[in-house]
């Protein structure tokens, strides 16, 4: 039966081909995965002695020891357990000194126009008086930006911080459209300042072309017990930073109980009605220390221009 004989090899052929294709796909996937993986630190050959958690002395390679000091990418995504970082911003103390903006820009090597902190001149209605409102990322507990990220480049940590892994970000900008507070900035071109540091979502440095950046609450600082730069830079003590679980916030000069502060001063969260549950609280601008006009006094011309952008005066279409 020649016909039947002919049939069998073709089937075998098909099977072999199928297996080849499957193997090829797996191999391709493996190559792809290895491309996306971060390189393992190389051993230096030099051994050092370290003490393990259970009190034993061990000899390890120096290269590996260094790696263990910095949090692994898994730890970065998890955050510090048992913490819940919050910020309280006292609007009565702000006079748009812009020390926070400049310190943040310096620390994160941000180019002008890409500030992670913005200071708004707010006026809630025509009859109320204007006030300055600094705005970092709110690190919401229900963050719309994290929900919409297709690759998990934006993530929410256990300690409440929302970070961006700009090594994974594909630059779709969906998070920027989804964030109701416009807290995110995009690197439209290669950052002019070259930073040689290895990227970590905790530092947000260096920025990369085609990815998103935003205020990160400086988790690399507070892991070492240091306050974020905006907090320490502010000459008027506007920013209070701390741990909600510990119930303490501090602006560097004074430490206060978080729960008492927000209760006594009737703190609010901006646009609570959006349901994003921000971790940044504002103390209302009552008994202000500075007149609003002072905010315009010693800021550079190009920054001043940024306040002249008016919303279009639109015709009212009423009945």
């Amino acid at each position, binding site marked *: 039966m020649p016909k039947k004989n002919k049939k069998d090899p073709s089937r075998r052929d098909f099977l072999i081909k199928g297996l080849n294709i499957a193997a090829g796909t797996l191999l391709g996937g493996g190559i*792809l*995965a290895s491309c*996306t993986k971060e390189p393992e630190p190389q051993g230096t050959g030099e051994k050092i002695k370290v003490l393990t958690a259970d009190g034993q002395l061990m000899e390890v390679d120096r290269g590996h020891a260094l790696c263990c000091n910095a949090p692994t990418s898994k730890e970065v995504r998890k955050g510090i357990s048992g913490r819940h970082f919050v910020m309280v911003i006292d609007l009565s103390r702000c006079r748009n000194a812009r020390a926070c903006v400049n310190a943040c820009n310096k620390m994160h090597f941000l180019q002008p*126009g*890409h*500030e992670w902190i*913005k*200071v*708004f*001149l*707010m006026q809630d209605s025509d009859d109320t008086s204007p006030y300055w409102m600094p*705005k970092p990322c709110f690190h919401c507990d229900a963050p*719309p930006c994290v*929900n*919409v*990220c*297709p*690759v*998990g*480049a934006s993530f929410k940590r256990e300690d409440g911080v929302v970070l961006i892994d700009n090594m*994974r*970000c*594909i*630059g*779709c*900008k*969906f998070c*920027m*459209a*989804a964030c*109701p*507070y*416009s807290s*995110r*900035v*995009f*690197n*439209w*071109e*290669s950052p002019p300042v070259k930073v040689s540091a290895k990227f970590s979502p905790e530092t947000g440095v260096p920025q990369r*072309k*085609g*990815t*998103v950046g935003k205020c990160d609450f400086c988790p690399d600082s507070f892991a070492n017990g240091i306050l974020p730069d905006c907090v320490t830079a502010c000459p008027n003590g506007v920013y209070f930073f701390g741990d909600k679980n510990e119930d303490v916030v501090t602006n560097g000069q004074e430490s206060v109980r978080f729960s008492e502060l927000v209760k006594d001063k009737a703190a609010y969260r901006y*646009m609570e009605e*959006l349901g994003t549950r921000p971790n940044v609280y504002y103390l209302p601008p009552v008994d202000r220390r500075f007149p609003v006009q002072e905010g315009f006094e010693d800021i550079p011309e190009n*920054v001043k*221009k*940024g*306040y*002249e*952008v*008016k*919303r*279009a*005066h*639109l*015709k*009212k*279409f009423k009945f």
Partner: protein
Amino acid sequence: MNSPELAQKKLVEVISRYDKPTVLGKIMFIFFFLVLLFAIYAFITQTIKGQIVTGMRDYVVWGIYDVNFIFFIGISYAGAMISGILHLLHVEWRKPIIRIAEMITVISVIIGPVFILVEMGRLDRIFNIFTHGRIQSPILWDVVAILTYLSCSILFLYLALIRDYALLRDNTVLKISKFRRYFYKKLAATYIDLPQQKKFLNRALTIMSALIIPLAVLVHSVLAWIFGMTIRPGWHSTIFAPYFVVAAVFSGTAVLIIAMWFFRKFYHLEEYILEKHFKYIGTILLVLAALYGYFTFSEYLTVWYGSETWELEVVYKLFDFSAYGAWFYLAAFVGVLVPMIFTGLPFLRNINTITIGSVVAVICMWIKRYLIIVPTLETPLLPLQDIRPEYAHYTASWVEWTLTAGGIATFCMFFMIFIKFMPIIPVADIAEVSEKKEFISEKL
């Protein structure tokens, strides 16, 4: 005359109408190709310098790339809805135009997503979507929906083509190169018009047309949800999905009419694509225009009457002539009323007016998509302060316009290439219809 002979005769007759390349055709093809090359140059510029060369900035993060994406996915509805629904309803007159409709679908579903790829900041990391994909993100829904839709519409087009490929394979009159004959032989997949084969093929086509309709609806709904899921004024609306679907069918039908006009005129298919086809599809366009106008009215009336601060700001931007007023009135009134008048009033209704109405509809639908995306992004909830003044307003750059032109050119070019490999009229089906007619007339 028995059916294969008749079909072969029809095939030769149809193909010889347009198979000879004309000078105009060649010039157009070269022109489209040059536009495509220029678009590739623009894309390379953007890849090297970054998206700084586009008009997009921190507030308006999506520009006309996204408009084009929605636009092309929208016109893909021609094949899915028109061809699918008419197939399910066994409408006989659909036969000369379904191939055009299905080609529009496949080509636009190929081109549309390219604009999303171009819009991404890091195209080199596209595979992260598969290695790190999160199903919570509407973008993932979109990827899944569009890939399914694309494969189904290619299958739908191919299944309808099998009988024609069988005819081409068996043809002895036409000059067909060896390579092509091989290609046709493979694609005809041993189809020899056995009753059983025919039955199975028909069943497969019915299943595909039933499948492609919900798929198409889903694709555009997911697209609308990308916007609808965000809490932004002008986007966060529950009717966004059906609104997008209706808009898509509307623009898809209009593009189908324009394509019919072009093929009739330049491929000499006057005897196949008749005035009645324009009138029938025109009636569908009329209904869709009315439906689309109703959705527009409902959406903006609700928002305007409700007068929420941010929603109102977007609506005022659309209503006011100092902002987007002129464009909005053009898209919302002219774009609906002109097609309705040309397709609705019997004394105005002819092939050319219906086509003009469709051109107006297509242009206005593009503008409408622009008005959905840009004004909302220009209206952040926080004040437009402490920014570079140029960030506040969006104007598309030459790179974006070039890539848009490249998309349209590729659309036309793909059509010209596709036609070389598939008969523009489903000959086998047409032959069957005329055979039936002969049979009836013989009896009478």
